[in-house]
Structure formats: C-alpha cells, structure tokens
C-alpha cells in the first residue's frame, strides 16, 4: 500500500508540477509570459505528465479534472524532477561562465547570492525546520527564477561585451552584437542552436529550422521592438539576445529533468 501511494504521489508530482508551471507562468508579469510563450515547446512537443488514480487516506491523489492514467506508462520510464537549489547553484556558473570581473556567474541580490538568501522558499532544506527538499515549481519559485534570469543574463551580456573574440563569449558565441536575423541569418540560427544546447541540452540539427523557430521569433521581435523604442536601443540585437536568454532560463526544459 505504501509503495503504491508513493508511486502515485510521484506521478502526481510530475503532473502537478507541470500544471503549476504553466499556470504560474501565465500568472506572472506580462513580459515574462511573452518570453515563455515565445520560447516554449516546439510544435511537436507534448506536455509530459499524466493523470494518476488511486486513493489513500487523504482521498484521491490526482486533481479532480484528470482523465484516467495508464499505469503501464509508469513502469517504462523514469519520472521527472525539478532541479534542486544545490543543482541550480552548481549549474548556473556552468551555463553562464564568468562575469566581467572573472567571477563565476550566479544570481546575485545586492551582495548576496540569491540562491543562498532565498534557499528556504526555494526548497533547500536546513535539516532543522525543513527536512525534505522542496522540489515543487511553485509560483514563488518561478518568481525568483524570473529575478534570477534577468540578473544572470545581464551579467553574461556585460561579460560578453568585454570579449572581442566570439570563442570567449557565452551568449554571443556565433554572432556579433550588431547581427540581426536579417543581416546574418545563418549566424543567428547557429547561435540559437548553440544556446539551446548550452542551456537545455537539446541538440537541434543544422537543417532543423522548426526547432529554433520560436526562439528566432522571440529574438527578432525583441530586437525590432528595441529598435523601435523611444529612444531606440543602441544595440537592438543585444536586447534580442537578452530576451532569448531570459526565455531559456525560464523554460521548463531548464528546470525539469
């Protein structure tokens, strides 16, 4: 009985997590939602998760609007988990490299590391008051990740601005700051493929334009908006890359594995 209950709760966690993620993104600020919707799943992607059935003493363990689940799907695969605070702490410097002061990039809130300052609400147990790792992608988690995304992307862009060689850059690895989708289509596409691999571990083949289409749209529209803004941005393409970066950080593909 206990095994069954745990399995169901594991299944639910995946399902509830995904739904929470989607709903929370919708509830977030308009800009955030734009970024997420623009860089989210490709047309062939389907939402993971699935309904679970079964009861324990607390009653049904799945949301009431769920359709029945095929238990056979559980046994064939692993389940999904959100990154822990520790995994985020170790991963951000690997994704973003070093800042302009040659320090590993992580989320900073003033002079404090954001992942340390907010470790409790983000689910990091202290083994005194909290003893279990909180791995729900809750609205609060998303709010903090939104803050983090803007901060780390800005740091990475500032660091890239100091580097003349593209090979040394993190975000602008295949493009120059002035390159746009119109002026350097191939370079922009290469950079989007590279970023998708770097951030999400998703490999998009050279001939797969559909795989980068949402990101390309985001980049182009953000760059165009920056150019049309009053006053216009000095380097509109940089704003495009910023939007892409923030969108990639906020994507479920970065936070779930």
């Amino acid at each position, binding site marked *: 009985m206990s095994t069954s209950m745990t399995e169901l709760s594991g299944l639910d966690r995946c399902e509830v997590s995904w739904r929470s993620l989607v709903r929370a993104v919708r509830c977030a600020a308009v*800009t955030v939602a734009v970024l997420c*919707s623009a860089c989210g799943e490709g047309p062939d992607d389907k939402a993971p*998760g699935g309904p679970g059935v079964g009861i324990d003493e607390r009653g049904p363990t799945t949301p009431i609007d769920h359709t029945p689940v095929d238990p056979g799907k559980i046994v064939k695969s692993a389940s999904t988990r959100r990154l822990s605070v520790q995994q985020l702490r170790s991963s951000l410097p690997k994704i973003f490299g070093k800042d302009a002061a040659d320090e590993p990039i992580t989320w900073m809130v003033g002079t404090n590391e954001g992942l340390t300052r907010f470790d409790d609400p983000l689910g990091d147990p202290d083994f005194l008051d909290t*003893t279990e790792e909180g791995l729900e992608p809750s609205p609060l988690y998303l709010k903090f990740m939104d803050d983090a995304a803007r901060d780390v992307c800005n740091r990475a862009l500032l660091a890239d601005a100091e580097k003349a060689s593209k090979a040394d850059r993190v975000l602008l690895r295949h493009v120059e700051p002035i390159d746009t989708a119109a002026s350097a289509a191939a370079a922009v596409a290469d950079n989007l493929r590279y970023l998708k*691999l770097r951030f999400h571990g998703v490999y998009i083949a050279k001939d797969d334009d559909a795989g980068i289409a949402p990101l390309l749209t985001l980049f182009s529209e953000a760059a165009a908006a920056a150019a049309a*803004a009053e006053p216009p941005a000095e380097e509109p393409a940089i704003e495009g890359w910023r939007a892409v970066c923030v969108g990639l950080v906020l994507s479920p593909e970065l936070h779930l594995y």
Partner: protein
Amino acid sequence: MRRTFAGISLVLAATLLAGSAAAEDDEEALVCDEPHDVDRFQLLRRLSLDLRGSVPTIEEYQALEAEDLVPAETIQEMIESDDFRVAMRRYHELAFWPNVSNVRMANQNTTLGTKPEWNALRVTSTGKGKLYRGDDGQGSCANVQQTQFDPAFPGEFRPKAGVTEGWRMVAPYWDPATPIKVCAYDAQESLEDGGVACNTPESAGKKGCGCGPGLRFCYGPAGVTNTPIVESLREQLGRSVDEVTAGGAPYTDLMLSTKAWQNGKIAHWKKNLAPYVTINLTYNVPDPDEEVLAKDFTDDTWEQVDRKGLHAGILTLPGYLLRFQTGRGRANRFRIAFLCEYFVPPADLTPAAGCDEGTTDLMQRCNCQYCHQKLEPLSAFFGQFSEAGTTLMSDEAKFPRMNEDCVGSGSAFCKRFYITDPEAYNAGSLLAYQWADLYPEVEGNLAEGVRALAEKVIDDGSFAHCTVRKVFSYFIKRDIRAQGVESEELPLFEALSDGFEEAGFSFPWLVREIVSLPQYRRVR
C-alpha cells in the same frame, strides 16, 4: 539597457496574449507523451545532474556530437569524480538530517561573553560572577591590567586576594594569534583546584578554577567556538558517508565501522569542553576508552580514530546521536533510513485482547503497543548511549544498571539517567533497562548494541533491499514496482539486491547499474 528592455515588453505583450490564448486552447488537448528514450544529449544532462549535481558544460555536449551514445567511460568518470562524492553526501543528508546547530552543548557556567558595560570577556553566568567578585554577579573586573597573582600557585595566574580584579591579555584557543582581554578570575590557568578538575561540573564552586590555559575549558563567542564545532560534527558524518560512496569501503560500513574522523575542533571539544557537563543539557563526556587526538582547536586537518566498543558507523556519531536524541528517535530513523519501514498509525484503533490501559510499559499499553512492541526492542539497541548526548554508558561504576541511591532522589544526575519514582516498576534502574528483565529480547539488544542490529539486517537482506529501493527511487525518480500487485520490476529488484551484495555492497556499483537501466534512459 534595462529601460529599453522594459519598453519592448509592451510590444511583445501582443505575442503574449496570443500565445496565452493558444495555450488555453492547447490545455484541453494535453496528453501524456508515450515513454521514449531520451537522446544522448538529454541522457548526458540527466547523468550529470544526478551524478555530479550540475549540468554538463557546452564542451561536454559538443563532444557528444561525434558519438552515438554517452560513452560508458563518461559515466565512470562521473562516478569517480569529486562531484559525485558531494552529490551523494547530499543524498545521505536527506536521510540523516545531520544539522545539530540548535543543540546546546553547555550553559553559561562555561561560556565566555561580554556586554557593553563590561571591561573584558568573562564567564556570563551570574553564579560565577558572584563566586569570583562577591557582588550580584552582574558586573565585571576593573578596567586595569591584572599584575598581582597568588604566589602560592605559580603559573596559574590566580588573582592575589585583596587586590582589585583587573583583566589579563590571553591568547584564546580559537585564535591564539589574537590575544584578548579576559577578567583575571575567568582567565585563571589552573587545571584543578583542591583535587577537582577545572573542566568538570564539580568545579563549579571552585574559585580557583577559571577557563584554564588559553581559555580551553570555556566556550567563546558562539560564532568562533560552538558553530565550528557543530559544523565539524556535520562534516564528520559526511566524511563517514564519503568512505562508502567514494572511498571504496563497503556500504555496510555506514553502520558497522568503528572508525570516525576527527579534526582539531572535535578533539578540543571532546577533551576540554565536553567533560564539563550541564546535566540538563547534552551529555557528551568522552567514552571510557575513547581516543581523542592531540590536536589544537585550530587544526583543521582530519584523521581517523578507532572508537571500538559498541560504536557502529554513523549511527553512533555525535551528528546522529545529537540529531536524534532518544533511543526511540534513533531507532525510528534507523528503520526509515536502512529498512525503508515507517510507523504508520492505523485508521481505526481497536485495543488488543489482554492489553493494559494504565501501564507505563508501552509494549503492553493498549493501542500504544502496536508500534512500541516493535520500537522498544529496536530502541534498546541504542540503550547504552546517553539520550540527549553521545556518551557510551558502558562504565558500570559510573552508570550502574541499578542505582538504589536514585530511588526517590531529586538529584539532577539521577533524574537524568534513572527511574527515580519509588512507585515505578524497577525503581532505581537505568532508564533504558527499566523493562529489560521482562523482555529477554530487550535485555539482549541492550547488551549487544546497534552493531548487532546492523549485522542482522545485513544478513537477512533487508539492508540491501532498502538500499536498492532508495537508490532506485532517487535516480529513476519514482519507486521501484516490486511490491503487491504492482510488481513488474520485482525480478529487477531482486537482481539488483543480489548483485549489490555480491559486489561487496559497493555503492558506486549499484549507482552505475541503476543509471544503466533502460528505465533511466526513458522519459515520457
């Protein structure tokens, strides 16, 4: 730059609204993906996050472009990396909760502190203040350097009687390079006074006892003494975990090894601070034959000592004993961590036939007995270790199993360790032994200690089963289906358990096997 970004968000809002509406429509059509293999890039990401605690680097992803799959050597390198050791520490911390930072080691009789109105550091207890200065215990020494000492005690720096007490500059054990002002009585360097050791509770009323040479018998400000000690106790447990996850030792050593790591903080605590017991707080007096290394507090190097006796892996380390402070708590955590078993109260309680509503014997008391018939014998395995403390109470001269003097006694020692109520069953017995004469199993478990329990669960296979269950659950992120009607993976469960044993209880072997399973490489 930020202002521009904010500006473009309005333009992008149109896309948002369109996307949001589309997403709303899509939700109705949400369906589960069929389980499918992840590609080598996603597998590498999964392996890296699970085994190293972080995502791969871009270079590691790009190296895969020339491969058809994630090479076995890559997995092996991850398991042999230091990041794996760190990641597996975290996995075990989730089982043992080794944070003892809220544990009070001692009261104010051995704690140095200061106040704005004080002229130097002093022991903060009012009683000590009264003893040293004869005032209300709230004041401190004069703001002058103490220069006159009792010549009858050369080298001990006992203030000369009749002279106003001042302060001395002392190099404290926690930072010998930075001398500090300490009131002269508190800074006395006597090791004993009238035959009473100055780092024992019996010295509380001895005016000739201060904090000893270098203040070694007293805690300093919490941040420089208590905190490093409790952090070391956590690290000590972590090092024992490292031995079995990355150090090549069999996983059974987690429960069987008598070895423990020790650094200067722990050695100093054990040798100088722990003997001064505050009876109503934790009891951490060194075991009768405990090896304490000759290390200074500032020595951050670690060495292993052999604790011998009834010690049993992490189960008798301070990090465990102080985190789970009762025999029952220790047994319950053991059961969860190593047997994957939980006490769950039934929905409906029906008293068993013949049970007793009023007895204090929980193994016979109605309803309580359902859990306690299991829990009390398990708890007895830990019975020789002080509750709310770490001391092995094997010295029967100090801890007789029956102490008639404690019957009806109001002494703090008796109330701490013995049944003092004259009306209670076996009044005068050491707490853990109260019911031992009624239950041979309890008596035997008390004598054998928790190593015997560990050996039992290793021999009967339940330890291997639980380890497989937990490791599988951690890496596959769901429970293994090996129980009841959902037992499709029972053969796998048995094969992994048997293989784990045959591999000498090698934790890295088990991890490698599990991350090589088809289940690990599929997602839905």
